[in-house]
């Protein structure tokens, strides 16, 4: 394909995409030129397909056919972000945002809204877009979207994820054209350096510096790798980019290839992401067909191709040297550094590895310029960051905010706060390598350095909200179970350290903690940080250290008072029956699986039957009695 042909595709689809990006009035004017009176965008990301968005699409298409509406375009996109309310469907040009769709709802929307002269079906809209007086606001102005700034996710939920033409019209491959026609490799690297972009995979190493080192390395064969082995539980931003806009990653890797002098790229992606893998395969095939990958790209003399490698479920493979060992077909064990991958990486050749979100930022940096990018964010952390909001929060989903946004803005405004009137306790960032941010630090502006300063880390961007029902000792035990399980076993500090830490935490949650345990834990943590081979072992103590720092009293309560404030650690719980409240109905005793509840002789004033009591020696603390008592007579202490 030549640049001229690329331009033709852009021109032919430009208005179609613009309808989805402009405000209502302009979009309505433009819609007439596109040949489609209405466009219906349905999320085809993993979140929404899990809540059956494919059935919604099928039913939508069927009903449209039955109604003879051939001027309505149905588009299967990537993630819109508001996963808690999936499946989501947006109708343009008016931008009506329908949530929690079912096939029946889709039929209703076709018959009442999509038919000529139809009206928006208000009761099916996302509640946040309908005001008290019945007026409808654009979804971009709802609290969830208003404070967001979408750079990495710019095309997610905007374009058909499996259509290269739409990707091109939305701006993909504009940067590679600029790079190959008007920039030298050094200019590309300088632009990335000047943007201040730091790696979004966790450590925050300046991307441009990585490229510069790889370019300086001598060698005829070099490699460009993409880390799509998103292993942090609770993080799904990389998956969403791959599902929503796979071409932006292919383009960025090609640009890096040009900059450092590489001609082959590898994308290492989790096999647990079948939708993302499928979309990547489609995207690579389309890009090859269009001559945007392969020999002589755009007829401008540069060769670059990309292959996919599937991971097989090992968290440590997110570490750069382990990932490369895995691509080589071995056990994914990390190697000591130096030599750094930029000097000696994949197959012993100079290699750069960036994660998906980092790649997603390259196109805007090249097209709009480093100066624009560097104007967003904080002094040392430029641009935006995508967070996967999860846990005890109303708007579970994917959000992208400028660096420096506070945790309070993310949780209370964008996230919609904590459900069920519970109190915010902490936010966990950085997954098993990160830490917990307590309620009193909720106004910290989030960037790479601030998070490290308060004992956590950015990590890949999972942000799990914990409420008062979460026990912090239990949470650190949960992460240690994870790291002990995922430790590759190559170095002793990590293999033995994670196991011993887990043993000690388990002991504490079982009520067997002793004086001095906390100090032992702290000492072990320091040793592991200092002596583990790779980031997995070096950062595995972080969840423990940060909860110890901010919630030390909870650990002490477990050890000294045998008390778990949150009521999570079973061994420390005691169930009791308030004999004054008990009416003697016997529902608790009837449902107790171990017959630990018996009737006493005591009849409370005003009651007819004698009350019950629990034998603590027999009680297995399952909580069934509490769930069955309608009179709130069973208490947990």
């Amino acid at each position, binding site marked *: 394909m030549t640049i001229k042909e690329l331009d033709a595709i852009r021109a032919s689809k430009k208005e179609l995409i613009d309808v989805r990006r402009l405000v209502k009035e302009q979009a309505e004017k433009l819609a007439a030129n596109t040949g489609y009176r209405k466009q219906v965008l349905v999320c085809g990301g*993993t*979140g929404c397909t*899990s*809540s059956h968005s494919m059935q919604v699409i099928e039913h939508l298409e069927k009903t449209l056919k039955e109604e003879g509406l051939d001027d309505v375009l149905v588009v299967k996109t990537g993630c819109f972000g508001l*996963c*808690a*309310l*999936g499946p989501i469907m947006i109708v343009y040009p008016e931008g009506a945002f329908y949530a929690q769709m079912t096939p029946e709802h889709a039929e209703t929307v076709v018959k009442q809204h999509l038919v000529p002269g139809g009206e928006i079906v208000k009761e099916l809209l996302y509640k946040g877009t309908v005001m008290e007086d019945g007026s409808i606001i654009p979804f971009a102005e709802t609290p969830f979207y208003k404070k967001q700034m979408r750079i990495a996710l710019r095309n997610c939920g905007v374009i058909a994820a499996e259509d290269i033409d739409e990707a091109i019209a939305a701006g993909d491959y504009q940067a590679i054209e600029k790079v190959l026609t008007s920039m030298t490799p050094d200019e590309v690297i300088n632009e990335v350096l000047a943007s201040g972009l730091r790696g979004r995979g966790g450590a925050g190493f300046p991307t441009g510096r990585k490229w510069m080192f790889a370019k300086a390395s001598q060698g005829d064969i070099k490699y460009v790798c993409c880390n799509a082995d*998103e*292993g*942090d*539980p*609770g*993080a*799904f931003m990389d*998956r969403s980019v791959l599902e929503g806009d796979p071409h932006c990653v292919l383009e960025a890797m090609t640009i890096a290839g040009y900059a450092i002098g590489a001609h082959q790229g590898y994308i290492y992606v989790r*096999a*647990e*992401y*079948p939708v993302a893998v499928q979309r990547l395969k489609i995207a690579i095939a389309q890009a090859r067909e269009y001559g945007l990958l392969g020999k002589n790209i755009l007829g401008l003399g540069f060769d670059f191709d990309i292959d996919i*490698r*599937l*991971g*097989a*479920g*090992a*968290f440590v493979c997110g570490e750069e040297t382990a990932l490369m060992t*895995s*691509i*080589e*077909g*071995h*056990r*994914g*064990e990390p190697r000591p550094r130096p030599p750094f991958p930029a000097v000696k990486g994949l*197959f012993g050749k100079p290699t750069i590895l960036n994660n998906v979100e980092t790649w997603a930022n390259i196109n805007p940096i090249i097209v709009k310029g480093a100066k624009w990018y560097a104007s967003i964010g904080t002094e040392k952390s430029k641009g935006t960051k995508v967070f*996967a909001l*999860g*846990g*005890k929060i109303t708007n*579970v*989903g994917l959000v992208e905010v400028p660096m420096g946004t506070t945790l309070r803005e993310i949780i209370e405004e964008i996230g919609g706060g904590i459900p069920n009137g519970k109190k915010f306790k902490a936010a*966990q960032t950085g*997954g098993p390598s990160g830490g917990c941010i307590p309620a009193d630090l909720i106004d910290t502006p989030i960037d790479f350095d601030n998070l490290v300063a308060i004992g956590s880390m950015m990590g890949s961007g*999972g942000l*799990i909200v*914990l409420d008062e029902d*979460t026990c912090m000792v239990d*949470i650190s035990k*949960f*992460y240690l179970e*994870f790291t002990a399980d995922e430790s*590759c076993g190559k170095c002793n500090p990590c293999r033995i350290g994670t196991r011993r830490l887990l043993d000690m935490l388990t002991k504490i949650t079982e009520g067997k903690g002793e004086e001095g345990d906390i100090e032992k834990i702290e000492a072990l943590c320091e040793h592991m940080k200092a002596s583990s081979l790779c980031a997995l072992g070096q950062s595995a103590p972080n969840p423990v250290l940060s909860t110890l720092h901010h919630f030390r009293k909870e650990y002490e309560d477990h050890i000294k008072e045998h008390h778990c404030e949150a009521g999570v650690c079973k061994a420390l719980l005691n169930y009791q029956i308030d004999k004054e409240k008990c009416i003697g109905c016997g529902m608790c005793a009837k449902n107790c699986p171990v017959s630990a509840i018996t009737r006493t002789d005591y009849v409370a004033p005003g009651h007819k039957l004698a009350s019950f009591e629990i034998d603590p020696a027999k009680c297995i603390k399952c909580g069934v009695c509490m769930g069955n008592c309608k009179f709130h007579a069973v208490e947990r202490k």
Partner: protein
Amino acid sequence: MEQEAKCCACETLGTPEQAAQLKAVIEESKSTPGCLMHILQEAQGIYGYLPMQVQKTIAEGLGMSLSEVYGVVTFYSQFSLNPKGKNRISVCLGTACYVKGSDKVLEEVEKELGIKCGECTEDGLFSIDSCRCVGACGLAPVMMIGEEVYGKLTPDKVKGILDSYREATK
């Protein structure tokens, strides 16, 4: 003795079709650097797991030692040395699901089927595994049975879901 040794796929390469498929995969990929993982993934697709004889065949085909192949197989959690159930249950124990009580869902599945995580029921109908994040955190807690995702679970929903699979096989 000889008859016994040939009774299962541990000692043979399964059906002739399976053996032919495996051979084709090895032939097709063996010149690609780092192809072992890919071949193992394909082989697991053919057999449902990775019996020892399959690993031996792959090792021979690639000119590697069996211990090297076995080392890779046991390193990655996706590869299995044992057969899995017809319906593979995978309960997510990622953080978002965990804080919403997926451990209790897993307990209930184990109780209902009478097996532990990592095991397969005697009738071969179900096997249970835990996984780390399928990325459907908006629906937490979730479990997958085959490709189907069940979200917003509570322990009391488990029996009904499993019953629907039991019904389907009757």
